[in-house]
């Protein structure tokens, strides 16, 4: 999950720093008197919004207008407990209602067409930009060195047919938005909508951003992004924390909800195509995993241990598969996986799960012999492939095999 920013931390930390005009706001912790005074000051209208890592909050019915503090408090409590588009809310907050005659859409991102930043604008704000017709939106390139000039942006707004009296103030705010974008290491930010008051003043009334974690400016934000309650499983949380504990080797895993194959996979590209093959062929993978990047023994052992503890019991087949590695040492990773498998059996008792292995890379034969000897010692059925068998073919075979594999109780040991 990339680092993201929603409206509330934007209001709290960013908007003021970059002089972006925003509505006043109060967090859910505000006292009754504060809320009462604010609503009065705001002309008797306020919006209660959830702080959640999801768009389309309005469509989900999670943004409500309130006119008195009793209703505001009730809504603040209610909204906090909502789940919106599968995402849990972190908190709720109250913003000033901005009366508007016009809404404007704006977004800045890096654009594959220009290989440079670009800004997209539309006067049809407040709706999904993908639903806006091409002739009602405009995208233009921004010089990454020179930045966005007020003249450039005002020309674009004018092209969209913006009334002349609104161009100047809006342009200035959009230039400030660019400054926000480039100064904080964002890779995308969106204000949707800017609400333009009858007197022509723009307010950024919703905001979201995705940061580029490789950009040093993001690391120097000066505040920590809030942690959102994630709809993670215990396994995913444990893996995320384990992944963050070291930079050596990847330990990415997400649950897919499958119930047949536990895939221990290596390499970003290979992992994806293996999972796709498993899904296409009905292999019902339990997790998506990518454990490449030449993990040392301890790292791989820990990764495999977590995967086994959470998933091996329900798995009908264990698939250990990766392409032809350039750097990852197969003997080290396989020894770690084999030891984790042994440790699992020691801890939870014997298993009879079939194991399919496929790999290529440095110290391959030593790694494969270690794995075979361990599977033999544990009495597990196995099929082991080398790098000349395509990973997708191995995945296809695993998916077919798991569907016909007999239940343990149906088979007497005939080996």
């Amino acid at each position, binding site marked *: 999950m*990339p680092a993201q920013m929603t409206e509330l931390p934007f209001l709290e930390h960013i908007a003021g720093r970059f002089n972006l005009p925003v509505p006043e706001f109060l967090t859910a912790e505000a006292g009754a008197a504060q809320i009462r005074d604010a609503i009065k000051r705001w002309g008797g209208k306020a919006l209660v919004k959830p702080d959640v890592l999801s768009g389309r909050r309005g469509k989900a019915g999670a943004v409500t207008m309130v006119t008195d503090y009793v209703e505001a408090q009730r809504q603040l409590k209610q909204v906090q407990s909502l789940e919106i588009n599968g995402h849990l809310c972190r908190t709720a907050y109250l913003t000033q209602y901005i009366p508007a005659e016009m809404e404007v859409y704006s977004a800045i991102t890096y654009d594959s*067409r220009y290989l440079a930043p670009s800004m997209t604008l539309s006067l049809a704000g407040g709706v999904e930009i993908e639903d806006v017709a091409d002739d009602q939106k405009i995208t233009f390139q921004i010089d990454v060195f020179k930045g966005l000039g007020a003249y450039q942006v005002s020309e674009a707004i004018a092209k969209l047919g913006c009334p002349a009296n609104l161009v100047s103030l809006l342009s200035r705010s959009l230039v400030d938005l660019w400054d926000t974008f480039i100064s904080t290491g964002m890779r995308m930010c969106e204000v949707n909508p800017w609400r333009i008051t009858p007197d022509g003043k723009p307010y950024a009334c919703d905001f979201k951003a995705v940061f580029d974690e490789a950009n040093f400016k993001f690391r120097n934000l000066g505040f920590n992004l809030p942690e959102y309650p994630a709809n993670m499983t215990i396994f995913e949380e444990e893996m995320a924390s384990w992944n963050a504990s070291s930079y050596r080797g990847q330990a990415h895993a997400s649950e897919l909800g499958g119930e047949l194959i536990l895939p221990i996979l290596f390499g970003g590209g290979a992992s994806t195509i293996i999972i*796709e093959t498993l899904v296409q062929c009905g292999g019902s993978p339990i997790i998506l995993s990518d454990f490449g990047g030449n993990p040392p023994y301890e790292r791989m052992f820990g990764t495999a241990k977590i995967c086994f503890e959470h998933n091996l019991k329900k798995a009908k087949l264990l698939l250990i598969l990766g392409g032809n590695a350039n750097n990852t040492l197969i003997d080290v990773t396989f020894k770690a996986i084999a030891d984790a498998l042994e440790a699992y059996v020691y801890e939870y008792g014997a298993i009879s799960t079939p194991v399919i292995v496929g790999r290529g890379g440095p110290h391959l034969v030593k790694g494969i012999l270690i794995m075979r000897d361990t599977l033999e010692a544990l009495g597990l059925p196995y099929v082991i492939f080398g790098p000349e068998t395509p990973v997708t073919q191995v995945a296809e075979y695993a998916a077919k095999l798991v569907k016909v594999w007999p239940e343990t109780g149906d088979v007497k040991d005939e080996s």
Partner: protein
Amino acid sequence: MRAKKLSDLLKAGDRVAVSNITGREAAVVTAASQKYCGNIVGGWALGRQGQKLDVPHGRPIPVFSNVEELTNSLPKEQWPNKIVVYSPPQAVYAEVKEIVEHRNGTIETIFIITEHVSIEVTAKIAQICSQANIDVVGCNSLGVINVHDAVRVGSVGGDSPGENFRPGCATIISNSGNMVNTMASYLLSAGLGTSYGISTGKDMLILMPLKNILELARDDESTRIITVYCEPGGLYEKDALQMLRSGKQKYPKPIIAYVTGEVLEKFDLSLGHAGAVVEGKETTATAKMKLFDEYFEIDPFDPGIKYEKTPETIKALSRGIRIKTLHHLPAAAALICDVVDVKRDFRPSEPLVLNPWFVDYKGYGKHLPSEQILHRGKTPEPYWSQIKLLSKAVGATPTPRNMRNASHASSNDGREPRIYGYSLEKEMAGGSFAESLILAWTGQRPRDFEAQLIEKCLIASLTNGPGTISAQGAKLSTSAGNAPNTAMIAALACMGDIHGGNGRRAVEYLLQAFQDTRLSDPYDPDHGLDLQKIANKQADQFSKRRTAAKEAGTDYERIPCLGHPVFNGQPVNYDPREQVIFNFLKEKKLCNVFLDFYHLLAHQLKEIDIAKNVWAVNIDAAIASVVLGNCWKMLEEKRITVRRVCDIAFMVFALGRVAGAGGEFLDHQDFGMPMDMRIPVDECVALNKPVDRRTSPRD
């Protein structure tokens, strides 16, 4: 774009320089590239100027402090025209800026291998390089290979690019570096080699987009077919396909496209690509598939369909086809070759099949449908030879790991100390010292008689009189006024290959003598081995070795542990300590094949006149035979290393003797005099005359 054809990206004769050349990955990959094609003229790394990067069997690569120094130092004809960037992500922008500033008009292409370069930096690189008329491949690229010219940059093809990349007509373009190698290997089975392999990288901004590469491939004579692997994110494919459609002439080369990421879209999981929010729905895998299918005007490849050579199929396949899974690549390529008359490069190799190296269904096989049952296939070289070699090797070959805070030998969870998982308290309650000792040294409990044998070896090692080197060491140390631990260490320090270490050599000797036997239990009298034959063979080998050495006037390797300086006066000699062990085994109706072999060998050496009498099999041989006997099964099952068994043989002696040395210390301390081990001056022999008392003319 500066390049006008694919070979402008990389060709024979290009001069490549590498940034951060001494970095962990850069050094390894650069050396492999240099070995493959020798196109690297130099590299630079801060603070490493003057060093050289070693290349196995090749000329070392000079290292400079920066690109400016590199160009100043190299003759003009060696100035690089291609740069490979391996700098850390934070340094990449400054590095590229410097390259642009010091390009001297020669630099054409920069390949950025570094991962995790920020998108802002990537955009800046795109701009400054575009203004400087320099092409960029990357960031996060694996590199590029020109197979016909046998040159590469980056690590495309790994350590042996020739394995998967045979010269041919397919250009491979891939977001994933690893898939360049994979697709090249798959194409071989369709009879297609590779002309170019290009890893574009898969960051949010791809600085050498698909459109540009397809333009370069359009007129490339070596390319007749193109394969594309792409992931979600960006509008690169849309732009490329628009370009193909918009040309006045039909794009002349068929494309096989594989788009990944469709299934994961359903799970809302991001792939390598950052994805783009405002670029629209056409950045998704599903949309990219649709775009390709619309361009090809044919459904994705289906191996179950028999494609007819109709005008429609020819028209469609001359544009190309999409594959739904990667291992359909050879079949789809073969289809295009057949229908569109693309000439194959060579006879198709073995088709891609499931080829298991090892299979064991453990009794479940009978319950599986026959079509799902695989049989062991043919393991290709060099792997088969490696398997044979590793299988034949005696003992374990453990995989190294960090052992700073880890131990198999001991543990203590705060409640109970353990030896290899066995409770120390229970060891104290029920076992013997020798039994626990072998557990601590091997991880496995010995059988009762094995523990008794070890105990006898320890007792035998306690002493062989005060004149032994190790006892002397303890006494010398005591005489100097040292504490017991120092005296015991002195005894240990006086052990070596000659005194005490012979057991280690004996284990090595016995292992080579018995390596080809099918011995299962060395203590079983029904072992089934012809020990006399083995002894005769070893005696003959020794005889030949000794004769040859004597004729040549050189020294030769002795058989360890035969003969004794004390027990040597009889026609048949015995070391009484060894005899205790031998007789114990006899009483127990057991044998030790190694000890029996030693006796037979001693007799055989007398028989063939190597020895005048039958040498004693000394206690070191007995210890080695006992230790090897105890460890034989563990060695066979590769649970223990040969080195450990050799060391244990030494350690049994050392432990016994150091305990004996403790006895010498106590005795010497109580009854000896300080410095009594000193040799009086009048007993010392000077072998040189005093130099300063010479009366020669030179003085």
